[in-house]
């Protein structure tokens, strides 16, 4: 590092060429902090392009929108639990006793011009932030973008998602309306369920009994300072790692594991990404204008003896609520200590389990497959059937929990009683992910076969041919080399590299249980895959069958127009 700055300093001094009006200021800055060395590299840094790479961007920009709208809100919002008699603009609650926090939320909604807009932008952006992070994570998962060397960034991303959930819940709690109070009531119950120390945790967090007057001011500091600060730091780190490791790309003609093909940061990505920020901001502003969200005035101030029927948490908490609803009543007492597993398992442990599994996944996969190489090319989901199947099984479980979180709404909407729904879900939560796994893996392998067929025999043209002896066959259009390459550019997994599960006598070797488990897992991972065709297969396919066909008139190579999102050739 130090040597770099020295050389930079001398080169700046010897620069003769003038760069117009920017020369002065850049010279001034560079003389002091010597950024030219970094800037010259990074300004024209190449980023690959694909729609799915924008998901993380959406998360980033909605975070910026949250910072901006949140600062506005904090100028008027007063997180105090002091009781006041409301005398503000919203007539239905005049004369009612409420906390200052709730009253200031009403003031923000009815008396501060633009306040309601900012509240709604803030809440919509929060919803979007979490949705974008989740979908971005799924993108990274299903394309294998978390593989070496990006495991660190996968972990940072998981931390961001968790903190985002906590931050969102904290914000949801601030206005101290009936809905947010109900959410807190449940959160307090979750704390109590923590074995042995639960009561103490609850008392320390709430400053005594629920609801008390300490929690909202405390969570306010966490919401506006502590968590956003950590989020900001982690996001910065996330971005730095992204720049350092460079973005992954889809395989395709000219796109290899050793390069990045795309457009330069300056000007193309500056314009596109910068423009996209304004699009995200604009969309959240329009949503804030057109769609009501969290109308706190309609719920009334928090009162522990009241509840609104059909009350729902924000979407990202829905799955936890659903898990609580689905869980049977499992609670027992040993040595006078009560263990409320009916609450602890779904409410506390499940979150830990989910994020634990997600955090471990890249390392488990690496261990099972023995793949320690660096990967910069993304995989199509079909080319990693086991991973894709795990992912779909996880989504299925998540979806069922989420459905369970709305079981009362489903019950009233469809006229089924919620006992039936809940009992069904209790079974499905175990059965459906397994089925989803099996079905997904089959589908992936089927798609792999289809890809292999296409490579070997070309695309189906839809043209039916009748041979002189009366047989019908479909004309296959040969693939352009770019298309064939895109379909075969992924790695061929090295199943054979692992030791066999049994020794040469067919008996499990006793010393090497772990290795055997690993070999078995590895076979489970890969054995059924249809690997991409080998060069020999391709040659054979050409030798057979097609020799008598006339040279193709449909020369698809002429139609080749680059590759589309999936790395497949784009055509008109």
């Amino acid at each position, binding site marked *: 590092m130090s040597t770099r700055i020295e050389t930079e300093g001398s080169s700046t001094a010897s620069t003769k060429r003038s760069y117009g009006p920017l020369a002065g200021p850049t010279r001034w800055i560079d003389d002091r902090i010597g950024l030219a060395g970094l800037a010259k590299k990074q300004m024209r840094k190449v980023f690959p392009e694909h729609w799915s790479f924008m998901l993380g961007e959406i998360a980033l920009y909605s975070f910026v929108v949250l910072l901006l709208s949140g600062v506005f809100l904090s100028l008027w919002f007063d997180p105090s639990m002091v009781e006041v008699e409301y005398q503000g603009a919203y007539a239905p609650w005049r004369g009612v006793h409420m906390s200052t926090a709730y009253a200031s939320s009403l003031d923000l909604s009815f008396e501060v011009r633009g306040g309601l807009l900012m509240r709604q932008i803030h809440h919509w952006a929060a919803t979007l932030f979490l949705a974008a992070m989740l979908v971005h994570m799924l993108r990274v998962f299903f394309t294998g973008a978390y593989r070496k060397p990006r495991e660190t960034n996968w972990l940072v991303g998981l931390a961001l998602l968790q903190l985002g959930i906590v931050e969102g819940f904290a914000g949801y709690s601030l206005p101290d309306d009936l809905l947010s109070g109900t959410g807190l009531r*449940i959160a307090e*119950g979750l704390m109590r369920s923590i074995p042995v120390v*639960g009561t103490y945790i609850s008392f320390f967090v709430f400053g005594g009994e629920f609801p008390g007057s300490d929690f909202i001011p405390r969570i306010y500091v966490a919401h506006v300072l502590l968590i956003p600060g950590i989020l900001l730091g982690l996001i910065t780190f996330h971005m730095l790692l992204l720049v350092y490791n460079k973005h992954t790309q889809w395989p395709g003609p000219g796109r290899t594991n050793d390069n990045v093909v795309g457009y330069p940061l300056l000007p193309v990505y500056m314009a596109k990404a910068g*423009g996209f920020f304004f699009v*995200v901001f604009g969309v959240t502003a329009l949503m804030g204008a057109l769609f009501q969200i969290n109308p706190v005035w309609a719920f009334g101030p928090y009162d522990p*003896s009241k509840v609104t029927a059909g009350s729902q948490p924000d979407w990202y908490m829905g799955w936890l609520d659903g898990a609580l609803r689905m869980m049977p009543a499992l609670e027992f007492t040993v040595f006078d200590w009560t263990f409320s597993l*009916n609450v602890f398992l779904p409410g506390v442990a499940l979150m830990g389990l989910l994020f634990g599994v997600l955090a471990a996944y890249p390392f488990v996969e690496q261990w099972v497959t023995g793949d320690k190489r660096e990967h910069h090319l993304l995989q199509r989901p079909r080319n990693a059937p086991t991973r894709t199947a795990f992912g779909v099984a996880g989504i299925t479980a998540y979806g069922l929990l989420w459905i369970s979180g709305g079981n009362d709404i489903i019950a009233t909407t469809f006229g089924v009683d919620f006992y039936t729904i809940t009992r069904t879900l209790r079974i499905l939560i175990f059965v459906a992910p397994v089925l989803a796994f099996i079905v997904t893996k089959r589908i992936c392998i089927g798609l792999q076969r289809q890809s292999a067929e296409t*490579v070997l025999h070309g695309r189906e043209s839809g043209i039916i041919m009748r041979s002189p002896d009366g047989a019908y066959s479909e004309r296959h259009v040969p693939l352009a080399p770019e298309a064939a390459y895109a379909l075969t550019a992924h790695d061929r997994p090295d199943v054979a590299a692992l030791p066999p599960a049994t020794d040469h006598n067919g008996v499990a070797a006793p010393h090497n249980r772990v290795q055997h488990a690993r070999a078995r897992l590895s076979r489970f991972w890969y054995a059924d895959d249809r690997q991409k065709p080998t060069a020999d297969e391709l040659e054979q396919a050409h030798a057979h069958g097609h020799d008598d066909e006339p040279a193709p008139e449909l020369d698809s190579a002429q139609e080749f127009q680059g590759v589309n999102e999936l790395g497949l050739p784009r055509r008109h």
Partner: protein
Amino acid sequence: MSHDEHRTGEGATEGGTGSHPVGGAASVPAKPVHDGHRVELRVGDPVADPGLGTHEPRPTDIDPAAEKRAERQISLLFAISALLTLGFCVAYFAIPRDTEFAGTNALNLTLGVTLGLALLLIGIGAIQWAKTLMDDHEMVEMRHGSSSSAEDRAEALAAFEQGADESGFGRRSMLRGTLLTSLGVLGLPAVVLLADLGPLPGDDPRKTVWAKGVHVVNDVDGKKLRLDDIQFGQLVNGQPGVFFETEDGEPLYEGTELLNAKAKASVVLVRMVPDEIVNAGSAAKGVEGVLCFSKICPHLGCPISLWEQQTKNLICPCHQSTFDLADGGSVVFGPAKRAVAQLELGLDEEGYLIAMGDFPEPVGPSFPEFYQD
């Protein structure tokens, strides 16, 4: 970031890709296609990398009129955006706060729509600019392994070892031990200092304001209740009378104290035909079929509020725990383990409902010490 970035430069990688169809009859698959850059076929791969395709010029690249048109269109987007932002400022002052428009607040709608469209147009304009007018030659940048070079690693380790050695941290075990201890102990104040976050639980979770003689009153107006105020099959929300009592004009309970007390003491009253009550012990705690149960769910503390008159079931709206009030509040369904607590009722001399004491067990969610005393 010790790696140099090699840029192949704009356009430098365009290779003239010949059309070599594979998969059809005429192709020679295993032969690499030469494009001046990558020619080698990876072992085991059926098809060689044909290299980057040629750059397709856009209309704006070749037609100056199209270029001018695009520039004008994008400028128009930016100009409209500026107008909308000015419109936002005008609306801020011109539209009164409480005007209704199409069922929503007119000010909110106007501010949001003008701001939203203004931002959107800037965004769309910038993206259009990049797409139609900025150079769209793909560039190639080489990657380098994420790790440092072996020499760097060795040097870093050597530097660390030298530093560690010069410090004597490894050798001077007494210094090391005492330093680590003193640092470790510093963790204690960080925990100890948090002790005042809250009082210790003590008996608080076990007690409510209910006591012998406290009136059960209507939760809205605080009126004392007689048996006749509750009809058969009806569910009435109740509160302890003390919440509505005053001393020298000051309420006994207010603010946080009232909320904390309410979070444990809220009750519901039901009246059933005595024959319908299947649990004799539970019936005995009531008066002539009027029973009083805690309104706070033993699952996670939501107020249990949905009453099914036919089945005598009380359902919690939060996770649908269902309690049979004809059977002592026992759990029929759902994640709650314990029956909802019952408050023993009596009548005062004037025939108003009173509590005969506090709940026999803590109300609300379980906690680890629940069954201790």
